[in-house]
């Protein structure tokens, strides 16, 4: 079990570093990195808090203390995915509205230009 907790702690550190690297290279925006950094920090903290895990395992009537941690990781990542689904849906709505506005403006502009042919794609 100790080895599994060590692997989880190592994985959380790797996740943390990957997100930081993404931030540094501007691949991920700060506001979207918070969920991942928070999740990585939580997993790391719990994998190091053996006493807390033993207590939670006892509370859930599970013999192995790593099981509740894996369950918690699953929940955390489900929450992160759900949050990103909301963000993606919002972005898609905004994209549709923008696309429609661009089409409408393009229509109006082409109607006012003397040589509309030149503006065609």
């Amino acid at each position, binding site marked *: 079990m100790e080895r599994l907790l060590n692997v989880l702690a190592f994985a959380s550190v790797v996740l943390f570093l990957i997100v930081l690297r993404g931030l540094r290279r501007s691949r991920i925006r700060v506001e979207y990195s918070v969920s991942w950094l928070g999740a990585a920090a939580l997993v790391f903290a719990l994998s190091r808090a053996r006493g807390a895990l033993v207590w939670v395992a006892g509370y859930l009537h599970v013999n192995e203390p790593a099981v509740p941690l894996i369950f918690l990781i699953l929940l955390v990542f489900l929450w992160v995915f759900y949050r990103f689904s909301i963000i993606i849906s919002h972005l898609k709505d905004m994209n549709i509205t923008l696309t429609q506005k661009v089409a409408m403006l*393009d*229509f109006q502009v082409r109607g006012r230009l003397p040589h509309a042919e030149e503006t065609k794609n």
Partner: protein
Amino acid sequence: MSPEARSGQRGGGPTVLLIPAYNESAAIGTVVREARSLCPSLRILVLDDCSIDDTVAIAEAAGAEVVRLPCHLGLGGCIQTGYRMVYEMGGQAAVRIDGDGQHNPADIPRLLERLAATGCEMVIGVREEGDQSTSIGLIRRIGIAFFKLLLRPILGRRVTDPTSGFVAVNRRALRVFSQSFPLEYPEIETLVVLQRRAFRFEEVPVRMRPRMGGHSSITAKRSIYFVVHVLLGVLVNILRLDAWRWLGKRRAAPRA
């Protein structure tokens, strides 16, 4: 009498014919020319959903104004662009026909007449009972039957063809649809959106024609996705229904 006058929109904004098109170069020219000759008073807007063929050039050559979407949005997003435009330009009504020639523009005046006469928000041109002029695939026929059954208790009335894209809407519906409209396969969900708003719709029998070119986007494989997607959309709209208002409306007489 012009279709505009028949629709009771005298003195208001224009009545606009919307033709969503995606790679419809085989049919769009004929559809636009027919519409221009049969409904000369209507402003014709072809909504090009980022076609990669000559749809835009052919539609413009046939005399239509073309709204070009910079990227492919799908049928619902494309139609909503038209509804937004008509609403923002102060239009009083809009008629939508497909760009593949299945809908006969000669039926447009009858839809507008019904829209004006009944005061309802939407009129749907539906396939005449027993019309064998065009063949409907087995899968589509099953889909129509399924959604007819599903929609009946939701709408509190029978719908002849919930998948018909031949519709006329008035300004009240334009206002709603310009804000909220299903992105994909909008026809069925639109009916539930109307129900949510306590809007009414009427049906007018029309004679459908075989498509002049291209092919349906709903293939056998995609039809499963279609059913699941539309089912989910309908369920979401039911969740948004104001239950008490819905029940009240079903018990009350139809709105004038």
